[in-house]
């Protein structure tokens, strides 16, 4: 048995131990035992993924007796290994963090047992090698994450609502995936991925389109892609923060895994006629990226903002995946490989910085009890480590040079820009639009994270709770530290992971192997001109900053210095009410994108009793409702409600009536059979 298989087995064993520990151990040590075992499971998953990406032989396990009918089979290839490693890495950080976070009401048996099961299910999804196994693991992942989302339902009423949204949407997505994969498997001798791959060449384009379309709906719903994103900004804020991190950084990425696995690998043999699939994927990705970051830019709930940012990043990943498919359909393997490598690298980078950001947001939530940026501020004094870590995460998330997302977004833009000379009207139109969408997204992301960090952590505290915030315990800081270390490593040395990403790209069958040659210092694109050295760039920036500061100090020291109080218009000390809030910071953006966001404004002026000319109070309310949700979901929900009401008229509660229904339907069936036979 290979290293990858052994490590994955070890991960499952550790997850089982963690689940047993959650059920069996006393409450005092429960969180620590579960967290430690889950972290071991995550670490083993990380090792398994890295070993699989290194190509340590195809590890395959078949357990025919485990499930009826089809049995269970697992196999690891570099593509699955990449997602396995992402899930494992995120699980380590989240599990260690969870030990300290479990304090308030989260150390119950059910919640603690669900987390290792959730991690195990996520680890098994990319390793599944048959349709049956894949669907079982996918469903297990959905169910355990649902249990974790509703963990705090006794304390807040909104949790239950978020849970309903999440349950319904993830199961509708599951149905779509089920339909797609079963239609596919119906054309193959059995449901193993290998047999599906073999018969893909004989599918008609229509069947191929149905399979791809149905699975795309399901996987896009999991990845939080517009317009199927509605569950994401609801469920992420309400889940416990380490669960939000695991969901946002790992589980959501598995939607991308599904699209790549089905679209490139399983359906890769389908000849011709696939271009519209990938143009559709690219369009969905671009819309999600821009819409997600716009919503993130105007929201003030810190975790909701991060949830929308997940939609944005998954959109960017899908732009890369769609570009890869478009290039592959046009026979340009080099560019296809580059675009897919950019997308997969962005999955890794997103996992690193989004887990860090969600964990830091959880740390703030635990210390202040608030997720509302307008009530935070001034956390730098009380929580210096969390502030520094969130700052690092914000930099990593905002596509600026020393940041983590910069590397993968640069690769993405490179692949899109070099795709311009490719033939075809579709390419000539989509590629520039995609570049524009990525650029707009990058700019708005900077504004969003400047808002989240500046308003949330710097300046003065806006509420007593924020003023009294204290630093989180060591285990939480350790979890955040692990994610932060991954962010820094990925930002400075992307060359370390690029060969593995190249092998994953090759395994997906979308493009040539090793689209990017990564050295220790710089990386160079293969096949097209372009090279980048994140390490030298970061060093140059550091040197420039130090140089400017030193020069300013030198110049300033030549003059006499005088310490003067901050200018407050002479009226006395500045208060927190004079600061920029998250709402006011986002106001210009809201104004610019008024037509897209359509905010609801409510101004109530109460006049004085004695004169209309005197104002007693002014009340100002502003909401930014999700427009897609309102336009798309409301009619569907209304139709479902109408259908239910109509059905209720038939079900009056009378037993006689129900017996009558049974009698008449059986009779009608017999008549139909008698006539047709």
């Amino acid at each position, binding site marked *: 048995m290979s290293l990858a298989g052994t490590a994955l087995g070890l991960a499952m064993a550790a997850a089982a131990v963690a689940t047993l520990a959650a059920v069996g151990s006393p409450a005092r040590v429960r969180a620590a035992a579960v967290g430690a075992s889950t972290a071991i499971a995550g670490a083993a998953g990380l090792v398994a993924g890295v070993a699989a990406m290194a190509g340590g032989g195809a590890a395959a396990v078949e357990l025919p007796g485990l499930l009826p009918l089809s049995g269970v089979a697992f196999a690891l290839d570099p593509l699955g290994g990449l997602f396995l490693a992402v899930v494992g890495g995120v699980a380590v950080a989240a599990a260690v963090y969870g030990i300290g976070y479990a304090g308030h009401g989260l150390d119950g048996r059910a919640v603690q047992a669900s987390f290792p099961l959730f991690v195990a299910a996520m680890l098994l999804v990319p390793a599944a090698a048959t349709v049956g196994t894949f669907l079982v693991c996918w469903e297990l992942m959905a169910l355990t994450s649902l249990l974790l989302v509703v963990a705090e339902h006794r304390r807040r009423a909104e949790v239950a609502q978020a849970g309903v949204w999440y349950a319904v949407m993830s199961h509708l997505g599951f149905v779509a995936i089920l339909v797609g994969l079963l239609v596919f498997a119906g054309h193959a001798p059995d449901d193993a991925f290998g047999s599906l791959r073999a018969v893909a060449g004989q599918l008609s384009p229509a069947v191929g389109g149905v399979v791809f379309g149905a699975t795309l709906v399901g996987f896009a719903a999991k990845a939080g892609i517009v317009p199927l994103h509605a569950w994401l900004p609801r469920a992420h804020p309400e889940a416990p923060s380490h669960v939000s991190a695991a969901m946002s950084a790992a589980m959501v990425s598995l939607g991308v895994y599904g699209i790549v696995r089905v679209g490139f690998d399983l359906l890769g043999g389908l000849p011709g006629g696939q271009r519209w699939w990938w143009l559709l994927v690219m369009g969905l990705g671009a819309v999600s990226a821009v819409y997600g970051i716009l919503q993130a830019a105007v929201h003030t709930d810190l975790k909701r903002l991060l949830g929308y940012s997940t939609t944005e990043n998954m959109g960017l990943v899908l732009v890369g995946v769609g570009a890869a498919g478009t290039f592959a359909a046009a026979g340009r393997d080099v560019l296809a490989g580059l675009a897919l490598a950019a997308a997969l690298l962005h999955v890794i980078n997103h996992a690193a910085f989004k887990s860090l950001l969600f964990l830091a947001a959880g740390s703030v939530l635990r210390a202040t009890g608030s997720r509302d940026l307008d009530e935070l501020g001034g956390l730098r004094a009380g929580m210096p480590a969390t502030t520094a870590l969130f700052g690092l995460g914000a930099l990593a998330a905002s596509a600026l040079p020393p940041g983590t997302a910069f590397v993968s977004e640069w690769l993405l833009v490179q692949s899109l820009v070099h795709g311009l000379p490719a033939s075809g009207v579709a390419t000539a139109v989509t590629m520039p639009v995609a570049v524009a969408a990525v650029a707009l997204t990058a700019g708005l992301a900077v504004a969003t994270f400047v808002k989240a960090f500046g308003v949330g952590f710097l300046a003065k505290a806006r509420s007593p709770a924020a003023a009294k915030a204290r630093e989180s315990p060591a285990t939480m800081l350790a979890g955040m530290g692990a994610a932060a270390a991954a962010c820094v490593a990925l930002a400075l040395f992307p060359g370390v992971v690029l060969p593995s990403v190249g092998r994953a790209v090759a395994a997906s069958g979308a493009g040539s192997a090793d689209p990017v040659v990564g050295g220790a210092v710089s990386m160079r694109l293969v096949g097209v001109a372009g090279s980048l050295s994140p390490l030298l760039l970061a060093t140059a920036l550091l040197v420039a900053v130090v140089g400017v500061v030193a020069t300013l100090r030198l110049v300033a020291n030549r003059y006499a210095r*005088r310490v*003067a*109080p901050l*200018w*407050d*218009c*002479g*009226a006395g000390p500045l208060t927190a009410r004079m600061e920029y809030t998250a709402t006011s910071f986002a106001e210009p953006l809201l104004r610019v994108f008024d037509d897209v966001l359509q905010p609801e404004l409510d101004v109530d002026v109460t006049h004085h009793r004695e004169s209309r000319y005197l104002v007693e109070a002014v009340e100002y309310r502003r909401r930014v409702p999700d427009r897609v949700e309102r336009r798309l979901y409301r009619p569907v929900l209304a139709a479902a409600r109408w259908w239910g009401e109509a059905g209720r008229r038939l079900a009056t509660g009378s037993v006689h009536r129900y017996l009558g229904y049974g009698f008449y339907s059986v009779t009608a069936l017999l008549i139909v059979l008698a006539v047709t036979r």
Partner: protein
Amino acid sequence: MVRLWQRIRRIGRVAEPAPERVSLEAGGAPLTKAAAGLAGSVQVRHVDAGSCNGCEIEIGSAFGPVYDVERYGARLVASPRHADALLVTGPVTRNMAEPLRRTYDAVPSPKLVVAVGDCARNCGVFAGAYAVVGAVGDVVPVSVEVPGCPPRPEAIVAAVRELTGR
């Protein structure tokens, strides 16, 4: 564009020559050392320390198109952080004493203070009133004083030219 440039060159300056500088007081007050350091460009912040707004109207007039004190290098600015000089009007009231002190502190060195009007110089008709702390000179050091109730715009222009040296 070229035609515009030619026109500008052909017409040249059409403004009337600036009036002669008149000294504020008989004998001519020497230009202070600080004013010399400003090199002819003075950014002015106006502070109303309790004025009846008579002086404000005259200041507005001095900075208006008729007297146009800006042509001598002075400019009204919106924050003491940007200013070289304060133009203070009115007797200093109790409520404005502390803000005036803070404003003075907020001006970067070197800094000058012009007390505009009789009230600013010696409390004028408000001397001894309950709400009045004292003249501007009692609160912050004053460099130049402009007499009058209110002073004529010419007097204000003369005082500002004293600072700019132009």
